[in-house]
């Protein structure tokens, strides 16, 4: 059953088109990933779906019912965890959860019971009475997710849930997402971490400049790179100096630059490594490592969008750092 159906969704701000006619659906019980670089339209799409932004054009249905012009009708069925905390700094973790439960009309005993249960489940029981402002970034994110599901919504919107937090907390949050999913919660997840999307999501959409450029299950997406042979070389010098020469020397091969003098060569057919090693060695670029790369979702993303992943992730990490300092932008 489709829990959300989005038809030709469009958003313009003063003549600028942030989201340009996107179409997708989310099945009940699945984790749907929305991937794209900064400014691609991910947050704007979430804002339109959750009622924080007006829809310029298009239609949104929740459980078959059109709520395009009346998002309030649907908000009771949604849990929303934005990319930056929006809980109350002066309240404790427990008070924040109880307050959020009250916003959804939950009876006192019910919201208190659920708040206690969620704090336990999210490993925050010991910090329950601590003021929210004393929480670490990772704890804040966990509490924000708990606040998003206190009323047991039909669908949970998670906007960049692991951006800007340390590895251990990011791992805990991913485990929580898996746990929520196993209990039947439908999740709409925006992220720029391809490996996170690959690990968590059943279906995905890539969004670039407000347009969905590819949508499907992870398996369907991976088919695009099946049959492709990729070898990654780690070189002992700057490849860019010989890039032009390389392209003219090996015109049938696709080339992608990585970080730290890494370069990967792509070909639809199998190939031997020796000519490449020889080419590099002759130009005083020693080959430190050559490894066969199994095609991943990252390859699909780069192929479909033409966006280098490192660039996208470093931009997003900068955004995470900015938001930690109290700034932050919306995409």
């Amino acid at each position, binding site marked *: 059953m489709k829990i959300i159906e989005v038809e030709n969704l469009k958003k313009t701000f003063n003549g600028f088109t942030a989201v340009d006619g996107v179409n997708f659906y989310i099945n009940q019980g699945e984790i749907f990933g929305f991937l794209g670089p900064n400014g691609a339209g991910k947050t704007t799409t979430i804002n339109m779906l959750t009622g924080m932004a007006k829809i310029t054009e298009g239609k949104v249905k929740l459980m078959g019912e059109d709520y395009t012009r009346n998002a309030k009708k649907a*908000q009771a069925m*949604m849990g929303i965890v934005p990319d930056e905390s929006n809980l*109350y700094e002066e*309240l404790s973790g427990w008070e924040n959860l109880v307050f959020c439960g009250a916003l959804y009309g939950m009876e006192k005993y019910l919201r208190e019971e659920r708040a206690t249960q969620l704090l336990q489940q999210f490993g925050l029981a010991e910090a329950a009475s601590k003021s929210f402002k004393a929480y670490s970034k990772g704890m804040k994110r966990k509490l924000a997710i708990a606040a998003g599901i206190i009323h047991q919504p039909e669908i949970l919107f998670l906007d960049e849930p692991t951006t800007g937090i340390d590895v251990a907390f990011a791992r805990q949050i991913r485990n929580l997402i898996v746990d929520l999913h196993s209990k039947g919660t439908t999740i709409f997840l925006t992220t720029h971490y391809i490996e996170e999307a690959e690990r968590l999501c059943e279906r995905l959409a890539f969004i670039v400049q407000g347009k969905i450029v590819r949508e499907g299950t992870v398996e369907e997406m991976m088919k695009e790179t099946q049959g492709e042979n990729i070898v990654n070389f780690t070189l002992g010098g700057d490849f860019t100096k010989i890039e032009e020469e390389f392209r003219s020397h090996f015109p049938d091969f696709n080339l992608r630059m990585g970080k730290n003098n890494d370069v990967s060569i792509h070909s639809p057919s199998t190939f031997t490594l020796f000519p490449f090693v020889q080419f590099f060695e002759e130009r005083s670029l020693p080959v430190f490592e050559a490894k066969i790369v199994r095609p991943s979702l990252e390859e699909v993303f780069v192929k479909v969008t033409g966006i280098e992943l490192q660039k996208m992730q470093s931009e997003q990490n900068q955004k995470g750092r900015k938001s930690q300092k109290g700034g932050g932008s919306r995409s």
Partner: protein
Amino acid sequence: MKTWIAFSSILMKDMRSYYLKPPNISWGLIFPIAWTLMFFLRSPVAVEVRDLLPGVMALSILFGTTSMLAVTITFERKSRSFERLLLAPISLNLLMLAKTSGAIMFGVVNAFVPVIFASFLSDLSGINWFMVLGSVILIAITSTFLGLFIAVSVSQVFEAQTFSNFFRFPMLFLCGLFIPLSDLPAFLRPVSYALPLTYGADILKTAINYNGIISVPLSFLMLLIFSVILFAYSTYNVNRKWIL
């Protein structure tokens, strides 16, 4: 959906987080005393406390409510916690009523602090308390909605404070409390009649000292009209500016 649960929780949270904080309670106590002393000091002749009561009550409400609401909403907007409220399944009107109710109650309580002081210093018999209560509530509502209007017009806390003064100080001098409306220059009188506090202060004058000059029903009607206009315009602006 039991919307009253959301309404009462927002109201109670605001009371605990903002209005019942010690600095605000002390403000509520010190402000009327300061105003009363100021009137005594500036007056060359002996002043009857009862004569001062309408002015001190009106100003206590105006100063207690406008900046409080403007600052708290701007602060919540800045910290993004107001977004949490906008995402809740309650109508925008109900949400804004919940946010303003705390300030209205704070204003009403503030208004009666000088009455308590005055009861020890002056004879308060013969006052029409129903009329006083009605006008205090309506002054609190219009002043709070003025604060809401300010909150939706600015984005920074300091702007909210500056903008509040932009409205409050002209009201202070033009509402007939310091200078009787009949003594104002002709070109300023229309401005006076365009200010809600003029009507609220006049009802208090009638109720306490029987010396108001505007018809009481007309003043009540004007305060209701101001309340509706300020609230409708503010919620329209929230919908237009904050739900993009």
